[in-house]
């Protein structure tokens, strides 16, 4: 059996999984840092509580991102050794920079932040969080630079058949990287925003169900305080309403950023990877129409099987070029061009093993690109719409008592996650059959490309990769259960779950632990 297919599944599963943790880390981190900044500036209790609570969830998620990120770095060498040999000169550099210039900061300063409560001065402690958050944001940049080089290779020359880096600046300022980075960061903020909205909504709803808060005849919220439920005092209400509205603002801003950067990125992609965009549109023939709905067998790679039901004339041209008339090449016209430039069959090289001489499929699986593109936009738009609705519904300072709306808000957390995954799957699958996509674009480097089929490790067997696929997928599945379990548990516990001191004060003001002695660590594993 072919190790290539299983290696692709392995890479796809581990990468998409890793990218469930990363956007939450990227999106939630800056918000927690802002909360702590507000606390340091104003000294208001609610901001401290917000920092502690959201910080706890941030850490539960952060560690999963770290643990699964390790796999990403190792698997290039393990499963894709030919790829690593071919591109190492240019691709390894941003990865090493990520470690040296970003990840060291992120991990070291996060350790300082976690354990530094009460040990560092307030300002220094706040700075450790900002540095850690900046580390994540910079780290993401280097990773996107590496990925974008595979989408649009720049800054290299071919020497002895290998791309050799000649211009690091070109690699770091690759237009594909800049637009993809901005798009990804805003996509991550959308995740953070929905997370804040959903969880805060649940808390506010619970306060109303438990009769702590109510609404008076004029529709104004009456904030109450519970004598029996731990942590449900008046400050608690402002923690959640403030978090919710911060989340909604983050989500709305994120969506504007995602839309603008997505448009720029799509225009670049029409230029740099025309086949990907044609497949995303299921555009068989050259034309100007954007398809909203198509049927037929999108998986067949044969365009004649695709029937477009709703088309908007001119829109495709507008997306690609900003006018309504320029014709965009369809799949049927692109295939012969690709065949002329890159051949019809894989070369007869020993390294390719049984794949040598195979016919090359230049059309990616259309069902994946077509629906991946639409799901990304659809889920992203849904999340943005939900955020606007949330702002409207909470304008008076509380949520409606409806359980159904609360459940929608909680489920809504998943929408931007789905949008992010769909976007990545679209952009990576749409690049096939290339692992390093060739450049038809004059600003890129000519002749730098690599077929995915030529990238897999020649010495590694199907069974080895299958073993890692099964083992990692199982472990990932189990860990997902634990992560969700812990997040649910801490969410149900409310702020008190992250602030034991608050608990002691609530339970019994005369308890000897109410003011812990200086000797006890304010945070310990």
């Amino acid at each position, binding site marked *: 059996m072919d190790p290539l297919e299983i290696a692709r599944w392995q890479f796809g599963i581990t990468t998409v999984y890793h990218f469930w943790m990363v956007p939450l880390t990227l999106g939630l981190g800056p918000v927690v840092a802002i909360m702590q900044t507000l606390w340091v500036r104003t000294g208001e209790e609610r901001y401290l509580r917000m920092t502690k609570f959201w910080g706890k969830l941030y850490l539960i998620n952060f560690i999963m991102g770290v643990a699964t990120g390790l796999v990403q770095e190792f698997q290039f060498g393990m499963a894709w050794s030919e790829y*690593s040999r071919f591109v*190492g000169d240019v691709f*390894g550099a941003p990865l090493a920079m990520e470690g040296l210039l970003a990840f060291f900061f992120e991990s*070291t300063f996060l350790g300082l932040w976690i354990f*530094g409560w009460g040990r560092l001065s307030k300002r220094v402690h706040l700075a450790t969080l900002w540095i850690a958050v900046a580390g994540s944001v910079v780290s993401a940049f280097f990773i996107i630079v590496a990925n974008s080089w595979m989408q649009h290779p720049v800054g290299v020359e071919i020497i002895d058949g290998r791309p050799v*880096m000649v211009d690091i600046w070109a690699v770091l300022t690759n237009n594909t990287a800049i637009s993809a980075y901005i798009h990804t960061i805003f996509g991550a903020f959308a995740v953070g925003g929905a997370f804040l909205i959903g969880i805060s909504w649940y808390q506010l709803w619970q306060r109303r169900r438990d009769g702590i808060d109510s609404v008076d005849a004029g529709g104004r919220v009456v904030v109450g305080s519970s004598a029996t*439920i731990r942590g449900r005092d008046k400050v608690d209400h402002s923690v959640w309403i403030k978090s919710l509205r911060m989340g909604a603002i983050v989500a709305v801003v994120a969506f504007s950023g995602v839309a603008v950067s997505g448009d720029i990125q799509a225009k670049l992609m029409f230029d740099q990877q025309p086949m990907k965009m044609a497949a995303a549109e299921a555009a068989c023939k050259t034309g100007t129409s954007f398809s909203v709905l198509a049927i037929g067998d999108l998986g067949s790679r044969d365009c004649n099987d695709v029937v477009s039901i709703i088309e908007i004339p001119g829109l495709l041209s507008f997306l690609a070029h900003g006018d309504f008339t320029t014709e965009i090449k369809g799949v049927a016209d692109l295939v012969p061009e690709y065949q002329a430039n890159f051949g019809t069959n894989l070369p007869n090289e020993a390294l390719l093993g049984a794949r040598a001489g195979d016919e090359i499929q230049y059309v990616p699986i259309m069902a994946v690109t077509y629906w991946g593109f639409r799901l990304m936009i659809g889920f992203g738009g849904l999340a943005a719409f939900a955020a606007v609705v949330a702002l409207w519904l909470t304008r008076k300072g509380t949520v409606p008592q409806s359980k159904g709306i609360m459940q929608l808000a909680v489920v809504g957390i998943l929408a931007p996650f789905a949008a992010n995954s769909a976007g990545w799957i679209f952009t990576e699958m749409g690049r096939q059959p290339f692992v390093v996509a060739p450049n038809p674009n004059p600003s890129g480097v000519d002749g730098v490309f690599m077929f995915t089929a030529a990238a897999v490790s020649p010495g590694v067997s199907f069974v080895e990769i299958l073993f890692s696929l099964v*083992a990692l997928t199982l472990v990932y599945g189990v860990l997902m259960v634990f992560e969700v379990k812990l997040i649910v548990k801490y969410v*149900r516990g409310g702020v008190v779950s992250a602030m034991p001191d608050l608990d002691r004060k609530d339970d019994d003001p005369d308890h000897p632990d109410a003011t812990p002695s200086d000797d006890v660590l304010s945070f*310990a594993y």
Partner: protein
Amino acid sequence: MDVLPTVWFIAIAALWIGYLLLEGFDLGVGMHMLVTAKSETQRRVMLNTIGPVWDGNEVWLITAGAATFAAFPFWYASLFSALYVPLTLVLLGLIFRAVAIEYRGKGSSERWTRSWDLALGLGSFVVAFGVGAMLTLTTTGLPLNENGDRVGGAFAWLNGYAVLGGLAVVGFCLVHASTFLALKSDGTVRAAAGRWFTRWTPVALLPIVGWVLVVQFQTGTIITWALVAVAVVAVLWGYLNGRVGREGRAFIGVAVFLVAGAASIFAAVFPVVLPSTLDHAFDLTIQNASSGDYTLAVMTWVTAFGLPLVFVYQGWTYWVFRQRVSDHHIPAAHVVRPATGE
């Protein structure tokens, strides 16, 4: 003269030594939590000695891997693909370890805590063993063909050297962690770590001594033998000091032993980065495995700027958390209950 590839060989050796030196005690603490600790409080004291620093320490591994990819892509590709199965296990160990440290204290049942302890201890063992085996095979060689690909199946790497090297790093981590725990904790954990150090150090260090000697007899030079001598003197000095409770000196002695011993190994194999056991014509060396000079120059600038900074802020972290951890520092376990009226 291949100046830049030589510089990068030294840099990667330094990253690996940095990793073993720093995460060595994290891994050892993970194992001691299973082996040496007698109570939940002792385990929590142990874990909290590495709490603020372990994640930063692990980045040395990530950077060592990525730097190898950038500076010696052929070395990275051949080594990692040849060791597919053991590296998968190392990855699983790293995943479990990281998650266990963060999650063990967040559950409420004893079964939860004990399960994560097991994940942490076994994960640490697998990582130490796997990294040791990998580094040893880098010095003793793998069956690689002319393209640098492993021949002979998924377990072609498994031989006596791999086991020796695996045990070497496991043994070193246990010793290193016992000096670290003795230095960083107080009370029962400090005493237990001291006792472990006195009793087990001579045995636990045998495999690493074996590995050093194998490499020295194969390709040693006067310089590398001098490094071995430094390592021997350092470890004897550290051990004798540790026996009489001078914990700081014991820690320094073991640390110098590691640095000098590992340096002797890297220096002895230079300029080969990965020998082929099939034919020395297929050996990967700093010349035929490295990236171009431009890439290496860029990386040198980045490292010259970045690494000293890492030293400064990681050093500062150790300074901030210099206080010993003991039983009375550990807060009571906090039970998380739903904040609801139901």
